């Protein structure tokens, strides 16, 4: 029953989930848009791959170095651009992502250029990816429910009011940006050790916008929403594989419909929880009971 195809699906879902969780913290909780996260994935993937192949570092070290380098790059970029307003920040991220792609295409000696970088050992099995995804979710959950997460939400709701309450807006925005880049780098490293062969074209603007769209589809300000969004975006194309030509079309239409009909996304600003659902059902029943009582 369980074959390499399912294993591959699990890896793809988990890798994307990690990158989307980073995006969710950045977009859903801090309301900053980045179209450059594929660039950070690319940096993480190439760094981890080079560490594994050239320096024969163990898998965990390669992934850590990849994520760390992506984080450092985000820190440097963020120091320069985090003060830009709205769309200007977004476009600077987009520019950065494209710069990374073109640069990796150009540095043939280090990254293999457009021909890609091959010979990466196969390390990311389904189990490893799943463990990483759960670990990433737990960290993100705790991060969001810490003092830092509260500060992010405050910045999202009203930047001026947050600053007036003593939150260092620039510092927290940068922290959120670095966090998302580390997650993207982590995802990239895992992805490289699954594919065994990476090209710069894998991490283009399409990938960046896919991450943003997944986050929005799942619901802004909700980590469980991001999980749901990732499951939908990654699994539906696998299920409808026979309609390969049409699936991206349906995907685009679905995005437009969700934005039109449920603007906050599937789980906007709500976390999925069993107790919450039970409480809701019982509350409805109580209301019905009390209404029934008043009528009689």
């Amino acid at each position: 029953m369980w074959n390499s195809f399912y294993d591959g699906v699990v890896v793809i879902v988990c890798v994307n989930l990690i990158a989307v969780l980073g995006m969710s913290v950045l977009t859903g909780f801090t309301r900053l848009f980045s179209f450059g996260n594929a660039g950070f994935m690319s940096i993480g993937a190439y760094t981890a791959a080079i560490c594994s192949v050239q320096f024969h570092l163990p898998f965990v070290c390669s992934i850590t170095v990849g994520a760390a380098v992506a984080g450092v790059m985000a820190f440097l970029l963020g120091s320069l651009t985090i003060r830009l307003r709205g769309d200007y920040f977004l476009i600077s991220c987009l520019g950065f992502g494209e710069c990374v792609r073109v640069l990796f295409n150009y540095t043939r000696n280090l990254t293999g250029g457009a021909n890609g970088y091959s010979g990466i050992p196969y390390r990311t099995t389904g189990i490893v990816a799943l463990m990483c995804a759960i670990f990433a979710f737990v960290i993100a959950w705790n991060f969001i429910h810490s003092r830092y997460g509260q500060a992010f939400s405050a910045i999202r709701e009203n930047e001026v009011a947050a600053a007036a309450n003593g939150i260092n807006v620039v510092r927290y925005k940068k922290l959120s940006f670095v966090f998302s880049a580390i997650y993207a780098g982590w995802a990239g490293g895992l992805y490289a050790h699954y594919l065994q062969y990476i090209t710069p074209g894998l991490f283009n603007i399409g990938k960046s916008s896919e991450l943003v769209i997944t986050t929005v589809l799942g619901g802004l300000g909700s980590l469980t929403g991001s999980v749901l969004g990732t499951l939908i975006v990654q699994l539906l194309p696998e299920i409808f594989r026979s309609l390969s030509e049409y699936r991206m079309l349906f995907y685009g239409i679905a995005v437009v419909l969700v934005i039109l009909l449920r603007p906050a996304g599937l789980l906007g600003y709500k976390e999925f929880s069993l107790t919450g659902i039970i409480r809701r059902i019982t509350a409805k029943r109580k209301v019905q009971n009390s209404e029934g009582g008043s009528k009689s």
Partner: protein
Amino acid sequence: MKILIQQMITGISIGSVYALIASGYALVYSLLDFSNWAHGEVCMLGAYCCFMATMVPKIPFALSCVIGIGGAALISLLNEKIAYRRIRNNGSPNMFLMIAAMGLSTTYQNLANVIWGSKFKQLPKIFSVMTLNLNGIFIGTTDMLCLGVALVVLIALLLIINKTKFGLHVQAVACSGRTARILGVRIDRIIALVFMLAGALAGLAGIMYGMKYNVYPTMGNVGLKAFIASVIGGLGSVPGAIMGAILLGFIETVVSGYISSGLRDLISFSLLILILLVRPSGLFGVDVQEKA
């Protein structure tokens, strides 16, 4: 020296095509404060409309161009009527408009893929592939045609915005939608008209781009270049977008001519980040009062 002049003219010609799209971005941004990511795809669909019209026998090329431009305007209007207006009336934040535009962009790109396939389609070349020889400077006739038409259209656009009553209304809505409504401007109508205008400009640019190169489903990516141009010029400013586009086209050709075509995008994107760092609201960034 002659080569440099040749490169400059080619660059400005490409830049003028970018400028047609970039001014559409600027117009929409000035009114609604969001980046219309589906604009590049409108340009692509305009080119396909023109291509479909040329397939019908006995239609002159000029008429099929008009059909292409009209089709693009119609699609742009539909985007506004079906998607953007509803989102605006929902009271959702501006970024949902941008996400919806991204969804529309994916939809159109794949729709074109499904309908016409991913093969390159060719628009008829009016002057075949000819070059003018001006005292040792070689210039493609298609380049000259694009440059000429684009210049006329852009000047007309600036005149419309600055001299007509419609332009005054656009400026008023850009300055403050609510005040304009109080003073009797029909905002929704103005916005719909601006979307049609932007769509028509994009359709024209798509036809030009298709004549220079080919027509294919991912040609909407030229919209990204145009968006960068409008950011360089300052979002929401039409003259800024035109200047930014011509600057970008010029830099691209000079870099690919003298340094390396592989580094072309790297340098234009780095330049973008650099300009944003030095002038955070673009080269010709404008106050609210001077938008559009």
